[in-house]
């Protein structure tokens, strides 16, 4: 059992008293958000050691992708981060586009950004809801899912599906936005701004909520960087690492938005980053709808698509962090290797550090604040 040196010294003084109770959280547990299993060693309510066990959802998607033509792989990515399927679609499409040097029409880029930000709101709402439930505020769950339903309705109208959208293609998007979509989105933006205020009143300002989240699970900046965490987890620790700003893709360099960064590094900061990102997403949506040009939405590609041999990677700011696809091509219709750098996978690896010394009740808060999706971790 690896224990840090300071821990070791305190342990040796009390080792006669207890050797810790091993408790198995998951794979079926209400707050592990999927089939994550944590082996905890407890001393009373204190966590001494945590070992995450993953792989219960492993489907070998990367290997499956090696056996299929490039464009057949897009629907599989829906099953990675199933709460933000469009981000995954975009990630793999961008990677194939870079590999094959495919240009995307302007309008398609704007549509992609619009869908991406709607998706981000939907995903953060799931976070908000489940995080609320984890901490006992069950009502927040229902409110967040009520509003998520509005986003899903919009996405359903545009893409035809509610969860596994598969609506990004190599070289654009399959179809233009439906008629009157912009008005509906703007109406949603208006409603949602008010609902965000309501969430703040219900949860963010709540004293109990703050005392449950502030100074819990503090992740220092250097540790967050060294562990390669990304997304809200890293930004809450004071690093402004947002792919949309660091390496702008699509039209993110043409829209104006702020990247919320907090220095506290605790659960509270991670929560605030996500809440603020929803505000920023609304801003982006409004700008995108204002600036969207007319034109085609898809580049015609040959029926059998053979990119030249080489290595390419793409990175996308998914709601959970840096989602990166890496593809190796040898010039044949199938990729040699598809690697998915799943943000949750890396973010979860920092969990043992965060949990050491925390309380059992904080476990769910910390795990919830990392916001993992097991479909993406196990791939």
């Amino acid at each position: 059992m690896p224990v840090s040196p300071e821990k070791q010294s305190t342990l040796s003084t009390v080792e006669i008293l207890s050797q810790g109770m091993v408790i198995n959280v998951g794979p079926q547990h209400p707050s592990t958000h999927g089939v994550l299993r944590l082996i905890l060693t407890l001393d009373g309510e204190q966590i001494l050691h945590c070992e995450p066990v993953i792989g219960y959802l492993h489907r070998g998607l990367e290997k499956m992708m090696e056996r299929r033509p490039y464009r057949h792989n897009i629907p599989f990515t829906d099953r990675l981060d199933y709460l933000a399927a469009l981000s995954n679609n975009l990630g793999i499409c961008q990677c194939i586009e870079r590999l094959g040097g495919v240009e995307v029409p302007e309008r398609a880029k704007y549509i992609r950004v619009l869908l991406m930000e709607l998706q981000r709101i939907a995903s953060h709402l799931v976070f908000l809801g489940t995080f609320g439930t984890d901490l006992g505020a069950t009502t927040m769950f229902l409110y967040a899912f009520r509003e998520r339903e509005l986003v899903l309705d919009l996405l359903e109208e545009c893409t035809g599906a509610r969860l596994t959208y598969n609506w990004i293609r190599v070289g654009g998007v399959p179809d233009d936005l439906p008629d009157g979509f912009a008005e509906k989105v703007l109406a949603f933006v208006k409603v949602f701004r008010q609902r965000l205020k309501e969430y703040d009143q219900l949860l963010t300002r709540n004293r109990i909520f703050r005392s449950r989240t502030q100074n819990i699970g503090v992740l220092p900046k250097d540790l967050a960087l060294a562990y390669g965490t990304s997304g809200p987890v890293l930004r809450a620790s004071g690093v402004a690492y947002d792919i949309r700003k660091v390496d702008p893709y699509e039209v993110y360099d043409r829209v104006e938005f702020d990247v919320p960064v907090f220095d506290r590094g605790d659960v509270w900061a991670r929560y605030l980053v996500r809440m603020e990102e929803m505000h920023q997403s609304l801003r982006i949506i409004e700008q995108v709808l204002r600036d969207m040009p007319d034109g085609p939405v898809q580049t015609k590609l040959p029926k059998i698509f053979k990119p030249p041999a080489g290595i390419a990677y793409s990175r996308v700011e998914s709601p959970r962090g840096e989602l990166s696809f890496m593809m190796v091509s040898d010039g044949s219709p199938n990729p040699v290797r598809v690697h998915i750098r799943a943000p949750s996978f890396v973010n979860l690896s920092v969990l043992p550090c965060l949990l050491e010394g925390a309380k059992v009740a904080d476990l769910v808060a910390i795990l919830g604040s990392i916001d993992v999706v097991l479909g993406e971790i196990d791939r």
Partner: protein
Amino acid sequence: MIAAVIQFFEQHPLLWTFVKAVVLASFTLMIPLAVIWIERKVAGFIQSRLGPLHVGPHGTLQTVADALKLLLKEDIVPDGADKRFFYIAPYIAFISTVLSFMVLPFAPGWVALEMNVAVLFVIGVSLFNVVSILMAGWSSNNKYSLLGGLRAVAQLLSYEIPMVLSVLAVVFYTGSLSLTEIVEYQVKHGWNIWHPPIMIAALIYFICALAEINRTPFDLPEAESELVSGFNTEYSGMRFAFFFASEFANNFFITAFAAALFFGGWDGPILPPIVWTFLKVFVMIFVFMWVRWTPPRLRIDQILRFAWQLLVPVSLVNLLFAIALGVK
């Protein structure tokens, strides 16, 4: 006819006691059905849902159906469980609730047992509940149950103290330990709640009541997102139903007790006394539910710190005030 029945029971007091016991026990079993239905409806409406709808008009019979389902379920006892304790724990919880209902005055004369130390009795028997939770948590031989049970005991015992102190304030104020007398005092002198020290006592009582019946800011013992279901994780079927019933009956009792202590019990104009009792109880139950579905829950150390560092001293000082102002 009625006179004959009364006379018959007067001649056979043992039989009369038996009838009262049966009525009370079935009342304690029936009340949860109503309270759970209200809870589900209120929760649903607060959460933009509709709640139960299909069984009976507006789903009123849903809880009855659920109770029947629970009673018909297989009674599973885990292999490693300490069987004796595992078997009796739910019944102890239930009996402690029934016992506390025994001294509760619903209306003038409507009380199963007129006892001059009713308040003391209630405080005494409600502690059985703690014992049953500890038994359930320990005997299940499940780590989650154990954690839940230990948390529950720590929490219930901590909150018992400020609660008793705030109840004592009322006792000193009215000068009686009998619930009936406390209510009668309020009928004459106005509700206790309007007097400043009792107001604070009522607030403390309200907070402690939330903790005693494991309601949301204090629902740690059964924090389902952490401990699956806390002390009753391993229970199913009828035993689980008894835990559940006793929890909701307790919910009813604790508000009825508060109504008697602070809000004048059956006192009220026009409507008959029994209606007033139930009205007050259900308004308070609604407020409890309203609170339950709003905030997140606290952590165990925060809960205990809150009880010992704030509630206990405040209720002690408050008790002194009540004595100074109230004793005649």
